[in-house]
């Protein structure tokens, strides 16, 4: 065996020794190139989802129906921008820049969660996003607080705490609607009707049993950057959410939803995965709008970022001159 191969093997063995013992890989550790690329894609997609997700909820900041709700919503959308910041920073530890990642988002080479390609048509949609979309996100993300890449795991600890707060706020907002007027209750039910299946689809296509779709689940599990299958997480979400819908007095739009004593889980109708793939490919109600909005904000801000860069350079030159 050539000496280089020996070194590569040793490095890979050291990597797997850390992963297999449930340790954390840190930015300076050796890691397989495919692991690094997969993590960049996964963390970037998560960061992009946070910043695109600001749009559907931000859509209601100006119209929030009370000043208290306006404050809660502003704080929530601000948290999402903050999550975007930590996640881009986590991705940067893998040797890419935020600018590069934003460029990949803007040129459609990287994706964001397809849930944000649905419109927020009423105020109740803001509550439904908090309850269902943040609820699904937490189900997906809590296991990532133990993922093998240290900076990502640590970012997820903080994000999950805030998401859990958002989920409770969303639930509380819907509870206020369902205890309110008939029109408010109808608004809440309509929101659940529209957001239920897209929320189930957030866990991705089936990846267990006969339906394994050739995705990345097995490899990602080996690397400790995915802990449970899409199907396990989807089931966990349904089991958690059904009792909450009962407290709200809302009906989940699935006639086949029922408790299965034998399995110890709820049986439920799967979301339409063809629709999920169509939306991922760009054919959702808001794909064009979301991306155009993001690109316009970025382009409109280019002169501001250039000015900040030019100013910083001038200040540095002044300091250098003063020191000379």
């Amino acid at each position, binding site marked *: 065996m050539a000496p280089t191969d020996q070194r590569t093997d040793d490095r890979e063995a050291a990597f797997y020794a850390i992963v297999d013992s449930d340790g954390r890989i840190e930015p300076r550790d050796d890691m397989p190139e495919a692991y690094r690329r997969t993590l960049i894609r996964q963390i970037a997609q998560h960061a992009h989802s946070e910043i695109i997700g600001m749009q559907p909820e931000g859509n209601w900041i100006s119209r929030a129906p009370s*000043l208290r709700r306006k404050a809660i919503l502003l704080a929530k*959308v601000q948290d999402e921008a903050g999550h975007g*910041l930590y996640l881009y920073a986590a991705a940067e530890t893998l040797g890419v820049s935020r600018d590069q990642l934003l460029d990949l988002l803007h040129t459609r080479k990287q994706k964001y969660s397809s849930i944000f390609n649905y419109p927020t048509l009423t105020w109740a949609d803001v509550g439904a996003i908090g309850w269902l979309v943040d609820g699904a996100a937490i189900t997906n993300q809590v296991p990532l607080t133990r993922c093998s890449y240290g900076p990502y795991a640590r970012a997820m600890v903080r994000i999950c705490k805030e998401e859990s707060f958002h989920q409770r706020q969303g639930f509380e907002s819907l509870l206020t*609607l369902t205890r309110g*007027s008939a029109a408010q209750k109808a608004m809440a039910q309509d929101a659940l009707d529209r957001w239920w299946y897209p929320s189930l689809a957030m866990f991705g296509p089936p990846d267990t049993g006969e339906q394994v779709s050739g995705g990345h689940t097995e490899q990602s599990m080996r690397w400790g950057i995915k802990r449970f299958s899409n199907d396990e997480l989807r089931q966990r979400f349904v089991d958690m959410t059904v009792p909450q819908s009962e407290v709200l007095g809302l009906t989940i739009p699935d006639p086949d939803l029922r408790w299965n004593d034998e399995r110890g889980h709820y049986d439920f109708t799967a979301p339409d995965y063809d629709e999920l793939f169509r939306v991922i490919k760009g054919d959702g109600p808001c794909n064009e709008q979301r991306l155009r909005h993001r690109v316009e904000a970025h382009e409109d801000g280019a002169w*501001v*970022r250039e000015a900040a860069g030019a*100013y910083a350079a001038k200040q540095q030159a002044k300091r250098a001159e003063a020191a000379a």
Partner: protein
Amino acid sequence: MTTQRYALALGDDALILAQRLGEWVARAPELEEDVALANIALDLLGQARTLLTYAGELEGAGRDEDALAYWRDDRDFRNVLLVELPNGDFAVTMARQLVFAAYQYELYDRLRGSADETVAAVAGKAVKEVHYHRDHATQWVLRLGDGTDESRRRMVAGLETVWPYVDELFEPFDGADVDPTALREPWTAYVHGVLAEAGLSVPEPTASRRGGRDGLHTEHLGYLLAELQHLHRSHPGATW
């Protein structure tokens, strides 16, 4: 004792500017600014809620913060015209922020000594928030003024856009806890200092626009309120 009119005027200033700054969220030039502008909007909204609640108490007619925010028409709003101006580009927004935060800083700094405990308490908290708002705007006026040719041109235009609305901030106000005319000198010292450091001239005096404190607004306010109020008004008596 603070008058209802005064509490309402200060509360409306904060509410309307919070509404304008909220429009930047998910549109800012960089993610840090989405966070910063949302944060400033949130501070202002918090000030507005306390001041409007207090204005309702002083009035004694059972109106709470939402009744005052959602059920008055534009002729009954008492904010200065400056805060209702459309955001324009980032330079216009930063020019408005510098002018307004520097004014609010001097105002709240003095209101901390108000004989009215509620107002003094609001001011004590708000002065720290506004100190940050003023610093945030200052840093951006410096960067844009002394950045690129384009940013400088836009910053000059931004200052010219907001300048006609400056005088109204310092007009005498009957029943004010702090005389607005006394704020002009320290405001001028601060703002002119920032402009000098940024290499920007103070815009030439122009005819000043006023009337907000008397409910005579720009055409922009009606649209802002239509958006702010429509959902609340569509469900009279509902709890949210």
